[in-house]
C-alpha cells in the first residue's frame, strides 16, 4: 500500500518554495528601505537597487518577474522623491535587457560581469537623467548622475558577493530531494 505524503510536509514545502521565490524581491526592498537611513551618502537608494536587480536578472530571472521589478521601481521613486515612474521605467528596461543577455553574461568571469554592470549603470543613469529632465522640464547637471554610477559600481562587488552566496544556498536547497 502506497502511503500519501503527509499534508504538513507539502504545506511546508510550498511555504518554503514561496519564501524562496519572494526572497530576492523582499531582500531588495529591505535593502532599499535601509539605504534611506541617513548615512551621509545621498542617493544610496537607487545605487543599492540597481546591483540587486542586475544580479537577480542574470542569475535567477525567474525570481524577478517584471511586476516585481515594477513594484521595486515604484518603491524607489517614492523613497527617493524622484518623479514617479522614472525609476520604474529605468529598472524595467535594465531588467529586460539584462535578462535578454543573461545567457552570455552568466558564463563570464566576475570581472567581465562587473564591467558589463558598469556599462548598464551608465546607461541607466543616462536614461534616468533624460527622464528627470523631461519630467521636471529643467536642465540638470550631469555630475550627480556620474557620481551615482560610480557609487553603484563600487557597491556591486560587495552586494554580488553576498547575493551569490545566497544564490548558491538557494540552489542547494532546490536540488536537495
Amino acid at each position, binding site marked *: 500500500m502506497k502511503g500519501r505524503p503527509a499534508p504538513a510536509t507539502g504545506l511546508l514545502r510550498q511555504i518554503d518554495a514561496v519564501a524562496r521565490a519572494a526572497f530576492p524581491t523582499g531582500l531588495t526592498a529591505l535593502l532599499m*528601505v*535601509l539605504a*534611506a*537611513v*541617513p*548615512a*551621509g551618502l*545621498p*542617493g*544610496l*537608494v*537607487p545605487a543599492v537597487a540597481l546591483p540587486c536587480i542586475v544580479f537577480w536578472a542574470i542569475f535567477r530571472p525567474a525570481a524577478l*518577474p*517584471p*511586476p516585481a*521589478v*515594477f513594484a521595486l*521601481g*515604484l*518603491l524607489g521613486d*517614492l*523613497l*527617493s*522623491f*524622484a*518623479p*514617479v*515612474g*522614472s525609476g*520604474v*521605467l529605468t529598472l*524595467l*528596461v535594465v531588467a*529586460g535587457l539584462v535578462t535578454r543577455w543573461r545567457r552570455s553574461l552568466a558564463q563570464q568571469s566576475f570581472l567581465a560581469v562587473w564591467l558589463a554592470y558598469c556599462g548598464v549603470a551608465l546607461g541607466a543613469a543616462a536614461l*534616468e537623467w533624460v*527622464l*528627470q529632465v523631461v*519630467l521636471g522640464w529643467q536642465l*540638470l*547637471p550631469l555630475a*550627480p*548622475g556620474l*557620481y*551615482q554610477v560610480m557609487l553603484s559600481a563600487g557597491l556591486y562587488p560587495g552586494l554580488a558577493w553576498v547575493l551569490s552566496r545566497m544564490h548558491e544556498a538557494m540552489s542547494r536547497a532546490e536540488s536537495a530531494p
Partner: protein
Amino acid sequence: MIRLSIPLRQALARLSLPVLIALAFGTMLLGKADAVLAERARMGLADLLAPIWSALQQPVATIREAGQEAEFLFNLRAENARLREENERLRRWQATALALEAENAMLQRQLSFVPEAAPAFQTARVVADGGGIYARAVLLGIGPNHGVRKGQIALDERGLVGRVTEVGLRSARVLLATDMNSRIPVVLESSRARAMMVGTNGARPRLQHWPEGSAPVEGDRVVTSAEAGAFPAGLPVGIVRRSEGGAPEVELFARLDRLDVVRLFDYGLAGILPPEAVTRPEPRPRR
C-alpha cells in the same frame, strides 16, 4: 491557482514586460498630472516607514559616534589648540556682547520698544534621507498629533537648514537650502545688500542677483531677508566664501551632512514655496 496552457503562459510572460513598460509611462503621466496624488503616496509610504527608520536611528547613531570618537582622538591635540584660541576670541566677544546687551536694553527702554514674541518651535528627529540623486532633502519623524505645517522653517543648532515642503501623519519632508530648487532671499550683513542664495545640490549654495556695486565680500555674514514673506529677517545662514572660479558662495552654518535633530519654527508666514510643493501652505491653527 488558475491552470493555463503552456503556450498561453509563455505568451503572457512575453507580454508582461511591454505592458509594464507602457504602465510605467502611464505612471509618469499620472504623477505629472496629479501631483497631489503622488505627494500623498510618498508621504503615506514615509508615514509607514518612519517608525522603522526611527528604531534604526539608535544603532546607526552608535556606529557614527564610534567613528567620530576615533576621529576626535586622532585630532585631539590640534583641536585643543584651536579651541583654546577660539575660547580666547569668544571671551573678548562675550564682553562686547554683554556691553551691547546692556546698551540695547537701555535704548529699548527709552524708545518703549515692543519686542517680538519668541517664536514657537518644536524639535524633530531626522529619520531618513528624503532626496534622491537630484534633490537634497531629509525626512523627519514627528509625533501623530504634531502641529507641523508646510512652509515652516527648519534650523539646526547653528543656522538655517531649509523649509518644510510635505507633511504626512508621522513624517515631514524638509527641502534643504542646498537643493537645486531652493531659492532663499538673503541679506549680506555688512553692506545690507539683498541677494538670492541659490542651491546647486553641492555643499555650498551660490549667491546671485546682488545689487550692482555691493558685491559679496569674503567672510561676510549672510542672514535671511524677509522679502517675499517666506522667511523672517535675520536668521543666521552662513558666511560668504569665494569658490575656485571666483564665484561667491555661502558656507552654511548648519551642518547639513550630519543632521540629526532640527527645530521647526512657526513664524506664521505663507510666502512662496518651492515649485514641487503644489498646494498652498495650510493656515496657522487658531489659538
